[in-house]
């Protein structure tokens, strides 16, 4: 492995903790929870890295950030170079340092993690990016020679942003179309301010604008322009669909349309994109709930619960039909939610919503569950306990069950092959679809996944588009049966 375990003295077993706002205080404001490392803390944490020759951490990173190199630069106090090193592989380090599930990726593989805490790669990545932004030394690379080719990118989430920045650096003309009034995808409308401050996303979008990408907001592709028009009339040579998985799922139980039942998408969009937590300074309203129940246990559920707390809720229940061990959310988020006072109601499933007689939510009837035989996924299947129904008084309910593919654009593309779940079929290495010149990647191909995977897809697609623009080669028979 090329590591020197004997160097691992006691001091290096625990990582430098990132200071954060106290739970009681932060549960009532929208400011970011962790404060970030000071330069001293960053250097100290960086010095725990063993600079492995064959670094396993790098393989755990979907975009293969040169982890030992950038960490060594931090150790040497060369913070700006550290950031440039990360940026060669990852255009959005300030975002990834904050929201990547590092514990399952880069940090899960770190050698130091075998005997203690793994090196805090995410925290260091965040530090380097924030340092660069703070010093105002964002480097704008020289513009390459223009190729005269034009690429349209649909959707400005992490997948679209990454692909756009890579393609513009290859000398193509790039236009990114976004349906909403602000670019950033889930980074602006979904992930809340206290986990990912919106100025960071604005900064990253500003950066790719400076590189020369034209960002067109308020452009609902499928309605304003179709993909065929972009390719045949507007002169685009290729098109990348990165529209995410933005269709909310509901529980499908009675009473789900009462006032006070929000999809997680709506609740988070009102709060984050529309800044409803600043109502009435901002015009968009949101119910200031007394008691809230969130259904689900992924990142989206945790975010919804924590936003509800910050809107002043006195009680926030997180209702999940399995047990804590099966929760899909990041461990850190579960921990944060608990610390802030979210109450977990486990092995419980909603049955129906009840109203006050005027269509306003009053309560939810739930049933207790127990774990039965394992299902196909290997997890023990929850089964209802007969006769265990009970009512919970609530005035806001938020089903946070994940997302589906939004058909708005897809139904204008009859020649684009979709899988059974409605997502686009695309070749994994290239993002090529069944339609010539059209590539796809991110959540619209994989279903709801992660920021870094969408970025990884954006990168691969940028490479494939470069090839396609040169050779005009299109063969998808290998993975799409005719």
């Amino acid at each position, binding site marked *: 492995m090329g590591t020197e375990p004997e160097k691992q003295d006691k001091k290096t077993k625990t990582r430098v903790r990132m200071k954060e706002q106290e739970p009681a205080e932060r549960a009532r404001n929208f400011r970011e929870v962790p404060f970030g490392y000071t330069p001293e803390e960053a250097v100290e944490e960086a010095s725990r890295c063993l600079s492995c020759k064959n670094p396993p951490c790098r393989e755990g990173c979907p975009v293969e950030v040169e982890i030992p190199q950038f960490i060594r630069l931090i150790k040497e106090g060369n913070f700006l170079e550290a950031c440039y090193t990360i940026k060669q592989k990852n255009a959005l380090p300030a975002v990834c340092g904050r929201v990547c599930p590092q514990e399952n990726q880069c940090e899960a593989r770190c050698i130091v993690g075998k005997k203690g805490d793994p090196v805090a790669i995410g925290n260091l990545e965040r530090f380097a990016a924030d340092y660069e932004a703070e010093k105002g030394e964002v480097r704008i690379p020289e513009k390459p020679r223009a190729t005269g080719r034009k690429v349209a990118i649909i959707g400005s989430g992490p997948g679209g942003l990454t692909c756009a920045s890579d393609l513009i650096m290859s000398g193509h003309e790039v236009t990114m179309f976004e349906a909403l009034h602000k670019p950033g995808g889930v980074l602006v409308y979904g992930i809340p301010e206290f986990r990912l401050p919106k100025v960071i996303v604005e900064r990253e979008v500003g950066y790719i604008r400076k590189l020369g990408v034209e960002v067109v907001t308020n452009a609902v592709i499928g*309605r304003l322009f179709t993909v065929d028009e972009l390719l045949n009339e507007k002169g685009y040579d290729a098109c990348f669909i990165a529209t995410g998985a933005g269709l*909310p799922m509901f529980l499908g139980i009675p009473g789900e*349309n009462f*006032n*006070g039942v929000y999809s997680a998408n709506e609740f988070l969009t009102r709060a984050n994109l*529309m800044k409803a937590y600043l109502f009435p300074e901002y015009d968009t*309203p949101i119910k200031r709930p007394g008691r809230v129940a969130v259904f689900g246990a992924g990142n989206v559920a945790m975010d919804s619960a924590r936003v509800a707390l910050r809107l002043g809720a006195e009680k926030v229940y997180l209702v999940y039909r399995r047990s804590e061990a099966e929760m899909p959310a990041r461990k850190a988020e579960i921990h944060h939610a608990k610390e802030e006072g979210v109450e977990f109601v486990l092995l419980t499933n909603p049955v129906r919503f009840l109203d006050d007689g005027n*269509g*306003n939510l009053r309560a939810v009837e739930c049933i207790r569950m127990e774990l039965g035989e394992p299902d196909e996924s290997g997890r023990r299947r929850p089964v209802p306990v007969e006769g265990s129904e009970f009512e919970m008084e609530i005035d806001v309910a938020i089903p946070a069950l994940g997302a589906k593919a939004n058909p708005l654009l897809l139904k204008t593309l009859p020649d684009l092959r979709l899988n059974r779940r409605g997502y686009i079929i695309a070749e994994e290495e290239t993002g090529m679809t069944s339609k010539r010149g059209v590539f796809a990647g991110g959540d619209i191909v994989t279903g709801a996944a992660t920021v870094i995977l969408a970025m990884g897809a954006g990168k691969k697609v940028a490479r494939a588009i470069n090839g396609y623009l040169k050779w005009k080669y299109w063969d998808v028979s290998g993975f799409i049966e005719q």
Partner: protein
Amino acid sequence: MFEILKKQELSENITLFEIDAKDIAKKAEPGNFIVLRIHEEGERIPLTIADFDRERGTLTTVFQKVGKTTHHLGTLNEGDFISDVIGPLGINSHIENFGKVVCVGGGVGIAPVYPIARALKHAGNHVFSIIGARTKSLLFWEDRMRQVSDELIVTTDDGSCGRKAVVTIPLEELLKEHTDIKLVIAIGPAIMMKFVCKTTEKYNVKTVVSLNSIMIDGTGMCGGCRVEVGGETKFCCVDGPDFDGHKVDFDLLMERQKMYLDEERTAFERYKAALGG
């Protein structure tokens, strides 16, 4: 940024804007709407595309001042800009030669019914139109509606213009007299659409309504615009806004429209106070 090219006060509290939006105008069809946001702190509100001119690249929208955002919108003038205009959204109204049809527009609903009546007329239909408002000063576009209708009936609740009646009275007379009416289109306040549907149900005449639930994105992303049609939940912005009126749960629609009454009042009071002081 989208420039307001023309402003016209149509009645006491109803304003017309012609907006420079070349790309949207190119694609707009009867039944479509836009979502707009006036400025950075603004909310997103939907307004129907009441007319469009593909050559000049303009959209016409007609709005009633009911709360903060629409009042604020009403203070803008020719040459001013609206930060965001998104569209065209919603499915296109279904247009074909049905034979005899009735178009009913109530209050500000006269504006969205106009392009549909026009398209139906072009398609060869015999178009009866009924437009109604509380009182004369709230009526508008009588001339435009007359141009696209074979017969136009005007009603006001107080009789200050046209017949003193609600729109369902002449509608029922038409349905009785012309048993070959194939379709009724009704756009207006939810309560009006509900009673139009009650009327047409008796005569078994298909009725299309345009629902106005509270919206944010208008693209199917948030689900806030949920309505129930035939016992199924639909997203008004992408599955509609046109629906089969006989299947719509109007009571639910009206309850959901009231979701933010308190907040809307707060916003409006605050807005008026800011103007006053």
